[in-house]
């Protein structure tokens, strides 16, 4: 239908070939321009994406929740200070169900679907070991916060690092001088009969021997056990120190039954805070622990001599003076381990900036830059304390705390030296191909 005013009358318009070509060229330019702009932005200011393999469900859920809180706080602090190399940092979180098979899938998902720059944050050793092959195959740097000796054992691969928390072999070794000098020379170990317990079973005796003390009995308790009284008669009468590292929900029963067995006449007790992470030290049944000592990675309770960095870290993560969530005293944190997330993210920042990291094509450079790191000074980025880093075994070594249970709180009575926890490297990742 023709329009009287010729508004739709195409016969009246003139369109030369030149005009048409100009139009097409301009149109093509416009069509391409946004894409081009996006591309150039991706190189310079797109966020650095960190895949966070979180234990949101499964046995590690209590740790997972606090690891997420700590990591979110660290990312906020890093972003507020300008990000990494001027780029913002973004956490992409996937739940691994604290399961090694799912963990490997999650690493694949980060590498291939989310296309994150690195993978980070795993705690439980079996998930780390199950996921490590996937990290190596995808050639994606995998920064764990596990404290297991698996990374330093050099049995994993060149893409796996633990730069934010000391491994358990070093922790145990650095406890020995204090135990031998202050608690006693005849030690009986009680530990769960699986890998976590075996680390203590294997590394404590030689460390104590070097200090002139002895492990006189080792009592392994099966993981299925729910009552412990029948094991206590195996504790030799001459025992001066009971070194206990029971973990899981049975810990409360274990302590209660140990208290009933000994009454007020007990040997010295020394434990690892892994037993009571996310658990209130004042829970009913734990009264027997009063006066006993614990290893702590980072102190749960605020200490009178806390550094400004430690205070700032606690405020940023949102824990009160008792190590519980601000506003919810029952929500006790996993303070002994979660600081590792904060510190690891700052190590990632340092290594990425050293490597001039631009994107996944620079992952090999990132590995080499991380391996080149030597020391981390105590400060806002490393509030738990100073550390050294051994690039050959991809493991850091820091100070440890020994705390006494006093009046329902944990008071730090001794800080170890980094040298107390050093050992001969068992291999060299840098010899592996990238």
């Amino acid at each position: 239908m023709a329009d009287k005013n010729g508004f739709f009358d195409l016969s009246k318009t003139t369109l030369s070939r030149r005009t048409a070509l100009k139009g097409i060229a301009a149109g093509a330019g416009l069509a391409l321009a946004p894409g081009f702009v996006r591309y150039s932005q991706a190189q310079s200011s797109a966020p650095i994406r960190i895949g966070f393999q979180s234990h949101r469900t499964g046995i590690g859920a209590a740790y997972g929740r606090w690891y997420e809180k700590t990591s979110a706080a660290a990312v906020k602090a890093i972003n507020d200070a300008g990000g990494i190399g001027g780029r913002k940092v973004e956490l992409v979180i996937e739940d691994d169900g604290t399961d090694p098979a799912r963990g490997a899938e999650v690493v694949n998902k980060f590498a291939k679907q989310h296309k994150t720059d690195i993978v980070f944050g795993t705690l439980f050793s079996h998930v780390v070991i199950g996921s490590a092959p996937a990290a190596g195959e995808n050639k994606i740097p995998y920064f764990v916060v596990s404290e297991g000796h698996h990374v330093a054992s050099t049995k994993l691969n060149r893409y796996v690092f633990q730069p934010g928390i000391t491994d358990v072999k070093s922790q145990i070794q650095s406890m020995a001088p204090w135990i031998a000098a202050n608690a006693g020379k005849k030690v009986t170990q009680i530990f769960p009969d699986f890998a976590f317990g075996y680390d203590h079973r294997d590394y404590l005796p030689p460390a104590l021997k070097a200090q002139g003390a002895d492990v006189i009995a080792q009592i392994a308790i099966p993981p299925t056990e729910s009552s412990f009284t029948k094991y206590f008669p195996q504790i030799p009468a001459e025992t001066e120190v009971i070194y206990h590292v029971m973990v899981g929900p049975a810990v409360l029963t274990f302590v209660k039954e140990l208290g009933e067995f000994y009454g007020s006449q007990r040997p010295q007790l020394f434990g690892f805070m892994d037993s009571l992470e996310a658990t209130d030290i004042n829970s009913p049944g734990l009264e027997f622990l009063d006066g006993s000592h614990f290893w702590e990675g980072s102190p749960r309770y605020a200490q009178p001599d806390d550094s400004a960095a430690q205070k700032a870290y606690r405020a940023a993560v949102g824990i009160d003076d008792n190590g519980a969530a601000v506003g919810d005293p029952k929500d006790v944190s996993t303070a002994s381990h979660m600081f590792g997330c904060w510190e690891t993210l700052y190590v990632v920042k340092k290594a990425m900036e050293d490597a001039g990291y631009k994107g996944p094509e620079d992952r090999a450079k990132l590995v080499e830059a991380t391996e080149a790191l030597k020391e981390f000074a105590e400060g806002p980025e490393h509030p738990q304390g100073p550390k050294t880093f051994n690039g050959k075994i991809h493991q850091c070594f820091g100070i440890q705390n020994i705390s006494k249970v006093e009046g329902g709180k944990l008071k730090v009575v001794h800080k170890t030296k980094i040298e107390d926890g050093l050992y001969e490297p068992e291999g060299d990742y840098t010899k592996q191909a990238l």
Partner: protein
Amino acid sequence: MRDASPAKTYALHIGVIALLFALNFVLPDYHQGLFARIMALAVFAMGYNLLFGYVGLLSLGHAMFFSAGLYGAGLTVYHLGWGVPEAFVAGVACGALLALVIGLLALRTSGVAFMIVTMMFAQVFYLLVLYFAAWTGGDQGLVIQQASRVVSIGGASFDLTDPTVRYMSALALFAIVLLVTLAIVRSRFGRVLVAIRENEERTKMLGYDTVANKLAAVVASGAICAASGAAYALLFGYVGSNFASIQYSILPLLWVLLGGAATTLGPLIGTLFMYYVTDITSGFTSAYLLIVGVALILLVLFAPKGIMGSIRERWLGWLP
């Protein structure tokens, strides 16, 4: 089950294998990897289905057969430095031998007792894995290094950590086991197994040695599950005790129930469904297991014979 011409049945199965082959070239990277894992685990489900679906023996201990293959292959590579083919054979042999021994003992029972006995044996196996942690790596497990996962055939070498090689290896195993299962199901032996499931007394009366047939089924099932475990260790490079835990005895039961017991393709469909429901829903909520549970309940209510079982019942009666 209505009889179908063998050509139609084999065409369907070869079509499924061809489809999986083609998917290798179109799937995005992440899904290519996930499919490789699903195919390897679908073999586990097929082994389970042979015993549960066709013989009607509900085992709650098949994790031990999967793990026998996993450790049989993994430990020979890790400690003895064996090559991939020898390690795979060692894994399958471990599973078959274990199944023979367990079968001889457990088949003295039936029904609920069979469930309990198989579960107890699997628990013994699991605790043995933890007990011998110095060799097995216990609950932490062991990593099979990339360099050990290369197959040399003639002058060519195939790196099992390469996504395409891994996918094709998983597909080859899946295809072989699918066709073997189909052949078993269609054979005289398979029909005797179904007869035992339907009425063991009558089968016995007809002159069949039901115990020998059931034992053969247990060994075949154990060997197939072990093949899956061995492939899992070699393809994905990790062996750990969680694969021997009760969870991995329940999982194949769920996969088979979902996909359709006593259907040859059901195990694949069930494994695929469970994996993707978990993978997709875990992106939205940490309560993804609740969603998986609801999906299972809905299936039990509205499709009690599983996905393929319901398809067979309603539309394609000839499905094996």
